[in-house]
């Protein structure tokens, strides 16, 4: 990238942010104003114009996906590239480079630890769901100032930490806490890091929590430069202890900060910018760079399936029909879009089921991002973990295989195995041998372990083929997947498809290693392939940072947007909706059903905010259904007359 080119493609506010020498530099900017572009431009500027060495640059963001994307957007071919990573990965790499052996606790194990604690010492917390408790603990651990916190929770966390330490385990929060402690205790270490990371840049700063922020502050000296860019209104991780007030904190801590605001939105048409801004009345307006008006529409539809149908119909119409019948019936089919121009966004994964069903039938290419991706299904996760284990027979992969829901081991058993391991220092295989002799594990569970050992034996005794796809075929046999899933054709198809995916590595040397590294790449991107020509189905959380020409937001209903929960953080829900709406470049569709899961639904309260110039229409399916019902009613009336 030529330097002249680089700056000339930026507006004057962005240029200011790229060139400024002030620190900390706080850039507050709305969606689509080029935050990520500016951050990346600054990295390039520092390296190419300022002679900064890439290894002196640290860029941080919040998800693996965002970090990978940033790396790709930067596209730096040099060996010594800047460190672009997430906070957790930074902590992990730092601790392991210090010679620490880290074993991260998985979800099942954590649940077991918590259950144990609740049963023995902390009955007080018994009526809180384990998932929620885990969040509470995480939030607690991420607070820097822990004095003010609830005392009973503090005790629970202390006991939890102690138990983990006794088993040489860490959770994700420990990665940061341990790093933080090491740095604050060890000044030499601290100076080494301060010398190394002369420029620290943080994207999506609004999602930083207190601990992360404290960590960063520790890396700062008057000579280091801190660049923070973000949008308080896109802060959507309150449940992880972040808040939209982080910027205020920075300003308080560093009174001589410089602030730059970016006010031109390059992404969306005016209508979309205006409509989404209405969620925050009185806030400063973004200036639309694009001249087209765009479109924001609210569509009422009978139920979840008609919602999916409406979306598919609309995509088909915009594409101009995907088969002969549609093509012949659509009047004006001279659009110019492609499948990757469309995204369907929902608040929670539970909404994706009917969508996926309908998309899958439609033949339209689509990809599910995150948890509901086919790769995330237990059968594929099992295969992936076995492949990883075959490639590198480390305990960590075998453990992942063992924890597969396929083997139905209770978390209690898994934990018992872990205890054996830490008490004896046995590798997992050995620990399993001990486990089958232990009385505190029920006989039923011990049987399951023996069963697992048999699989393992087959796995190690059989001569496995060298080609990745053939290995998968063999694994399918070894783990008897065809029998296990004989009544689930969709699962079998998923396995077949997975196998097909790996055939690409069959012809090349180190087939298995190549396949594993490809799968790891996909995993890092949460199974989202930005280059794919497919419609993207994803949650609001996963949509952050992305953009699409056409966006459909499903379930614009009370109970979903905002999500009905024990604790509703209404402002956070609003920000989430804001994030989703502002992904749209050209057209935005909000969809509300009349009935979902058989229950009457009411349109989202946030409709009130959007009232001005929101176009509302009914899906034709409503009229169709009403007509049917009317007919049926008439028939019924006639019957009663007779």
């Amino acid at each position, binding site marked *: 990238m030529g330097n002249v080119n680089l700056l000339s493609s930026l507006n004057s506010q962005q240029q200011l942010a790229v060139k400024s020498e002030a620190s900390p530099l706080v850039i507050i900017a709305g969606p689509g104003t080029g935050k990520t572009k500016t951050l990346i431009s600054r990295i390039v500027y520092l390296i190419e114009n300022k002679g900064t060495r890439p290894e002196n640059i640290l860029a941080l963001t919040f998800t693996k996906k965002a970090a990978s994307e940033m790396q790709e957007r930067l596209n730096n071919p040099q060996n010594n590239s800047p460190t672009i990573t997430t906070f957790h990965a930074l902590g992990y790499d730092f601790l392991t480079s210090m010679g620490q052996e880290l074993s991260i606790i998985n979800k099942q194990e954590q649940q077991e630890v918590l259950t144990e604690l609740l049963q023995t010492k902390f009955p007080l917390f018994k009526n809180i769901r384990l998932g929620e408790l885990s969040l509470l603990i995480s939030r607690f651990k991420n607070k820097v100032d822990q004095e003010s916190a609830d005392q009973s929770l503090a005790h629970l966390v202390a006991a939890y930490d102690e138990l983990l330490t006794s088993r040489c385990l860490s959770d994700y929060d420990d990665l940061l806490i341990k790093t933080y402690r090491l740095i604050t205790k060890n000044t030499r270490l601290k100076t080494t890091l301060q010398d190394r990371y002369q420029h620290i840049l943080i994207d999506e700063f609004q999602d930083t929590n207190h601990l992360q922020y404290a960590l960063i502050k520790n890396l700062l000296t008057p000579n280091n430069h801190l660049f923070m860019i973000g949008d308080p209104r896109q802060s959507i991780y309150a449940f992880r202890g972040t808040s939209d007030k982080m910027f205020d904190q920075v300003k308080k801590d560093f009174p001589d900060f410089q602030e730059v605001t970016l006010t031109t939105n390059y992404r969306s048409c005016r209508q979309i910018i205006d409509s989404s801004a209405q969620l925050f009345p009185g806030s400063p307006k973004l200036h639309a760079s694009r001249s087209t008006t765009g479109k924001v529409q609210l569509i009422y539809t009978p139920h979840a399936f008609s919602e999916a149908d409406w979306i598919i119909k609309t995509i088909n119409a915009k594409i*101009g029909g995907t088969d002969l019948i549609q093509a012949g019936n659509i009047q004006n*089919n*001279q659009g110019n879009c492609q499948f990757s121009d469309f995204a369907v966004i929902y608040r929670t994964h539970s909404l994706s089921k009917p969508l996926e069903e309908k998309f899958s039938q439609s033949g339209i290419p689509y990809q599910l991002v995150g948890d509901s991706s086919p790769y995330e299904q237990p059968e594929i996760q099992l295969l992936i973990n076995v492949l990883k284990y075959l490639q590198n027979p480390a305990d960590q992969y075998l453990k992942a295989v063992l924890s597969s829901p396929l083997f139905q081991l209770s978390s209690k058993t898994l934990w018992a195995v872990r205890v054996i391991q830490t008490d004896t220092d046995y590798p997992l295989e050995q620990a399993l041998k001990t486990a089958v002799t232990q009385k505190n594990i029920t006989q039923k569970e011990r049987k399951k372990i023996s069963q697992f050992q048999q699989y393992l034996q087959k796995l190690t005794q059989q001569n496995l083929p060298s080609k990745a796809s053939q290995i998968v075929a063999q694994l399918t046999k070894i783990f008897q997947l065809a029998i296990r899933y004989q009544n689930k054709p969709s699962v079998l198809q998923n396995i077949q498809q997975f196998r*097909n995916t790996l055939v690409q590595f069959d012809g090349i040397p180190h087939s298995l290693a190549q396949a594993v590294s490809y799968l790891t790449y996909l995993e890092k991107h949460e199974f989202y392939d930005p280059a794919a*020509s497919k419609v993207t189905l994803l949650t609001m959380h996963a949509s952050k940072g992305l953009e699409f020409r056409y966006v459909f937001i499903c379930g614009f209903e009370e109970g979903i947007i905002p999500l009905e929960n024990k604790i509703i953080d209404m402002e956070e829900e609003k920000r989430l909706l804001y994030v989703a709406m502002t992904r749209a470049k050209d057209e935005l569709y909000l969809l509300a059903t009349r009935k979902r899961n058989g229950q009457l639904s009411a349109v989202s309260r946030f409709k009130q905010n959007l009232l001005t110039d929101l176009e509302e229409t009914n899906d034709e399916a409503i009229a169709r259904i009403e007509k049917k019902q009317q007919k049926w009613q008439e028939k019924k009336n006639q019957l009663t007359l007779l």
Partner: protein
Amino acid sequence: MELIVDLHIHSRYSRATSKDSNLEGLYRWGKIKGINIIGTGDFTHPAWFAEIQDKLEPAEPGLFKLRQDLAIAIDKTLPASIRKNLIRFALTVEISNIYSKNEKVRKLHNLVIMPSVKAVSQFNSALERIGNLKADGRPILGLDSKQLLTLTLDTDPSALFVPAHIWTPWFSMFGSKSGFNSIDEAFEELAPEIKAIETGLSSDPFMNWRIAELQKVTIISNSDAHSPQKLGREATILQSQVDYHDIINGIKTNDRRIVGTIEFFPQEGKYHYDGHRACNIRFSPKQTKNHQGLCPVCHQSLTVGVDNRVNELANLAEDYQPKRHKVVEYIIPLIEILAEMQEKTTAAKAVQTAYQKVILDLGNEFTILRKMPIIEIKDAGYEALAKAIVRMRQKEVHVEPGYDGVFGTIKLFTSNEERKKQLTEQIGLGWET
């Protein structure tokens, strides 16, 4: 040897196909029709591909045959007259590419033919990342046709890529609605890699030869059958070995191995003329021009048919014929001839029975229609049929062109009187059972 080749068909995993579009059905009907090399179709579909691997086994290089036990079971049910016909399968698929290029939506159907199960697996896995392969045997991909071509040849250089039914308005390389104006425009620097095109039912080689660019490629014809009974509506005739590579190299070089094509009368195709199905308007290109391309009923623009579109792109006159050219044979499916003779539909029981009897007595359909001396047909007791086939072979037919998705009609006789006059009473005898 002479091989009749039909590479474009669909399995039951494609939309709007018959339930008995399976490998056994294709095998059976291939023998009845007299086709030697049949495309499997739909090899990107996981379930169909699994079935292909289960029911077919390798035969000559790059070709496959039905598993022996299945073949024997079917052969038992076939009359001796066709039992011995050679049937081989080639691995094929049709892909629907929907993408935008130069600010316009493009929708092209492309045919891909592969030499091995391994190549197919590799190709499928690449596509699986791009599209939804399990919803439709003819998968939709948001992929530029040019990229698909690259992917095809990268997967295996001996694979063949053929733009399908290149003139249909909605989904083809030259389609009036979302196609291109030249191979160059569609495939840019890779245009020379396009070695063959498929005529589709609505065009014949003569129409295609009016476009200078198409004189440089091989013209092939296939049935695009959605049920096994429709196999061989069109086909390609080769003089080659029973070997994938010999066949494909023939197609790629257009040398002597390509004898020619067997054609539908192009007017019978669904998109020959212009018009509006909903408004009952059928126009010749000239009429369309007189109406400025608008439908006199609804005033929307008419669906432009193949004839018109060929005129638009042609560099050569309507009556142009290359001095030397490949064989072009026109046929009317035997079942349609029989139906017309009996004044019944092709689905009528009597027509079906008659069809079976003719096959039983005379052999496979293509031999009867194309080659069998008329005298032999007569001598077997099918005097009327012999007369009808003479008319067909001499192209003495009456045509009502198809338009906007409505099949055209081809009649050997304009009226009942003529039919009666031409076919004397004795016809009936052979048929009634």
